[in-house]
């Protein structure tokens, strides 16, 4: 009777071992900045921007088509959207009260929806693994040539690192599945002259690949021959391919689709939207002067109370800094979590491709939801703080006169810096 779990356990173990032995991904090439895909005029489209366009198109289309014929008895997509709105709405109304909740809801719900859908979609296999091959040697050659033009005879001030795979040359490609694709990191030490940099890179590459210098010379020769037929620009400055064979590239893959929130620009953009709306709510609720006095409070200074007046001004400065720091914390919280999750999945796929990685996928589904929720709820809470009159801080100092501010909704007193 005990045999069944044992067999299942052994099967799982065998499966993991097979994955580990034969289906290991190469050590991932991790790029923090989103990879560039193509340019429209002066504007460079990165893969995260491209993914954002795709996500927005899909979300907008599905939402519009799904809610075209609404009925009082909901069915299908209407039901899903309504359930999400109801559940989320009740949380927002609880936090902000009915009146403010109604104002906040569209913004925070759309933030939540977009962030969560972007996070979840990034877990599908079409993301991160299909893309264009980026040639590091080519990029580096261009970079060095430009630097040499700007500062003739200059040298690198800091150590430059490049990492990628040596793989077969191709245009659109999958991330090479087998671990024998070599992950190579090359270092250009500080002080290397721009003119020597390419040679240094190739020497490092040859050393890491374990190919001798004679073959390097040979390759260089064939490299010259091969580039002869390429673009006219490259004919003038042929790229020194170093130790690589003719059909090889030292590079990485720029995926077409990459999680939108793993590009720091996207969380920063949401944080800016969030901040704009929080300020807007504050100003519309308290008036421009009422809200502005949170930051610029000269009332007591003008009355002649120098000490408290100066404290008020200092508090205003602190308030201003805290507004700014919110944007930064919003940005890095979302970006950090999602980007770290992506790396975690890369690394787990590299270490243990089967079974074990699923646990981390489940974790990432949870993290994706929670991050969206946290972003939206923090926006709600900041909104509540913005629409609440800050006069009650003064009243607490007086010890009496609490009733003056009692007409504000209960939500206004929710924990502040959550």
């Amino acid at each position, binding site marked *: 009777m005990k045999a069944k779990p044992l067999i299942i356990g052994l099967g799982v173990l065998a499966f993991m071992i097979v994955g580990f032995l034969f289906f290991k991904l190469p050590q991932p090439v991790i790029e923090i900045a989103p990879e560039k895909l193509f340019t429209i005029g002066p504007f460079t489209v990165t893969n995260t921007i491209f993914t954002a366009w795709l996500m927005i198109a899909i979300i907008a289309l599905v939402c519009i088509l799904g809610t075209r014929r609404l009925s009082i008895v909901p069915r299908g997509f209407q039901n899903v959207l309504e359930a999400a709105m109801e559940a989320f709405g009740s949380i927002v109304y609880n936090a902000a009260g009915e009146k403010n909740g109604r104002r906040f809801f*569209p913004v925070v719900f759309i933030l939540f929806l977009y962030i969560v859908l972007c996070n979840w979609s990034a877990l599908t296999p079409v993301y991160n693994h299909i893309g264009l091959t980026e040639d590091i040697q080519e990029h580096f050659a261009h970079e060095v040539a430009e630097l040499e033009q700007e500062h003739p005879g200059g040298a690198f001030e800091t150590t430059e690192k490049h990492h990628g795979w040596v793989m077969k040359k191709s245009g659109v490609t999958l991330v090479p599945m087998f671990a024998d694709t070599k992950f190579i990191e090359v270092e250009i030490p500080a002080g290397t002259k721009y003119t020597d940099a390419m040679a240094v890179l190739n020497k490092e590459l040859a050393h890491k690949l374990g190919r001798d210098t004679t073959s390097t010379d040979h390759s260089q020769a064939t490299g010259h021959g091969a580039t002869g037929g390429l673009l006219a620009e490259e004919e003038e400055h042929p790229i020194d391919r170093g130790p690589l064979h003719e059909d090889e590239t030292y590079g990485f893959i720029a995926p077409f689709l990459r999680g939108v929130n793993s590009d720091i620009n996207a969380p920063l953009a949401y944080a800016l939207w969030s901040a704009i709306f929080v300020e807007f709510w504050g100003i519309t609720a308290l008036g421009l002067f009422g809200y502005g006095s949170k930051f610029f409070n000269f009332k007591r200074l003008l009355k002649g109370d120098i000490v408290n007046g100066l404290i008020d001004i200092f508090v205003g400065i602190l308030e201003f800094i805290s507004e700014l720091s919110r944007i930064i914390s919003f940005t890095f919280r979302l970006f950090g979590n999602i980007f770290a999750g992506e790396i975690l999945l890369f690394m787990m796929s590299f270490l243990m491709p089967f079974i074990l990685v699923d646990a981390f996928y489940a974790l990432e589904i949870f993290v994706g939801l929670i991050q969206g929720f946290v972003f939206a709820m923090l926006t709600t809470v900041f909104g509540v703080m913005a629409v609440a009159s800050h006069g009650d801080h003064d009243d607490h100092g007086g010890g009496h006169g609490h009733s003056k501010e009692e007409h504000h909704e209960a939500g206004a007193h929710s924990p502040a810096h959550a």
Partner: protein
Amino acid sequence: MDKLGLNLPGIVAQFVNFGILLFILWKFVLPPVQKMLDERRQRIQESLETADRMQAQAVNAERDVQAKIEEGRQESRRLVEAAQGIASRIEAEARERATAEVEQLRARALADIQLERDNAVATLRREFADITVTAAEKVINQSLDRTAHQRLIQDVLSESGMGSNGASSR
């Protein structure tokens, strides 16, 4: 900054991207759904209220019906009692009237009897007198004055106490 990939065009692009989504959903998707949610909530509330009202009405109606039944029962009891009262009165009256009638009849019968007896006595007396006179005439052979004779007999009868009633008839 460059290593992080932070750059102005990227920020602007993502800012605009989210702005577009915000606009589309806020303008075209959320309002109808929100309206539908509110409408449904209102409808549910209304139907709950209606149900409450209906139930209250039903309870009221039930109470009314009970009250009506009770009232009817009391009414019928009252009617029966009244009928019984009337019946007993009628009975008493009937009995009284019957008794009175019987009494009357008896009285009348008694009077009749009295009359008949008086008549009979008078008749008897007259007959008897006549017979006596005739008998006396015959026996005595003496023709007496008839009127004097009559008076004589009358006196005799008065003395004996028999002619007190019959005296008036003549």
